[in-house]
C-alpha cells in the first residue's frame, strides 16, 4: 500500500471513529438534558448539542464532499448563540421559582457549607 492509498484509508477510519464518538456525545448530552435537575442545566445541554451538531456537519462535509453545509453550520452557531443569550435573560428575569425546589443534587448534605462562610443567597422560598 503506497502513501496516498494509506492516507485515504486512514481518513476513512478516522471518519468512522469520529462519527461514533460524536453520536456518543449526542447521546450523553441528551441524557443530561432529560435528567437535568434545573433549567440552566438543560440550556447548557442545548448549547452543547449545537456545538456537537456543528462538528457533525464538518465531519459529514469531509465525508461526502457537500461542503455547502458549512453555511448551515455558521447559521446554526448564530441561532444557538442567540438562543442561549435569550435563555440566560429569561432565567435572570424569571428569578427563582417555587417550581424547582432545589433538587440540584447538591442539597443532600446535613448542614449548608455556604452558611458557615456567610455565603448563603437568601431566596426567600427555599427551606
Amino acid at each position, binding site marked *: 500500500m503506497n502513501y496516498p492509498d494509506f492516507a485515504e484509508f486512514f481518513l476513512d477510519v478516522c471518519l468512522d471513529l469520529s462519527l461514533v464518538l460524536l453520536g456518543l456525545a449526542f447521546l450523553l448530552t441528551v441524557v443530561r438534558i432529560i435528567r437535568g435537575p434545573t433549567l440552566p442545566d438543560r440550556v447548557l445541554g442545548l448549547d452543547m448539542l449545537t456545538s456537537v451538531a456543528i462538528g457533525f456537519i464538518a465531519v459529514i462535509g469531509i465525508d461526502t464532499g457537500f461542503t455547502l453545509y458549512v453555511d448551515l453550520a455558521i447559521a446554526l452557531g448564530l441561532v444557538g*448563540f442567540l438562543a442561549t443569550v435569550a435563555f440566560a435573560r429569561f432565567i435572570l428575569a424569571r428569578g427563582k421559582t417555587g417550581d424547582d425546589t432545589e433538587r440540584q443534587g447538591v442539597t443532600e448534605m446535613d448542614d449548608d457549607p455556604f452558611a458557615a462562610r456567610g455565603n448563603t443567597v437568601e431566596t426567600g422560598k427555599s427551606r
Partner: protein
Amino acid sequence: MIAATLSILAGLLIVAGSAFAAVAAFGILRLPDLYTRMHAASKAGSVGSGMMLLALALVSHSGPEALRAIAAIAFFLLTAPLSAHLLAKASYAVGYRLWPGSVLDEMPRMAVTTRESDTPATDTVPPGIESGRRG
C-alpha cells in the same frame, strides 16, 4: 503527496475534535453542579468543533470553502465564551448554588429576584447590598 499528508492531518484533527466533544459530553453528564458542567461544555465543546471545522478547511479543494470554515471557527470562538459567561452569570445571580465541595467562591452576593409560581416578582435584597435594579 501534499494532499495525502493533509488527509492524514485532517483525520487526526477530526478524531481529536470528536474525542474532545465526547469528553465534554461525558463531563456534562458526570460533573456535580451547573458551573463545573459549564466548564466542561464551553471549553471542550468549542475546541472540539473548532478542530473538526479546521479539518474541513484542510481537505476542502477550493479557497472559498476553506475560508468559510475558518470564518465559522472565528465566529464560534467569539460567541461560545460569551454565551457561557452570560448563562453562568444569570444562574448565579438567580441563586443556583455551587457544589458543596467547591473551595472558593469569590463572587459577591447579588440581589435576587424571587417569585412564587403565580405571583409577580419581588426583589429580595440580602443585607449589605444596595439594589440598583429597580426604579
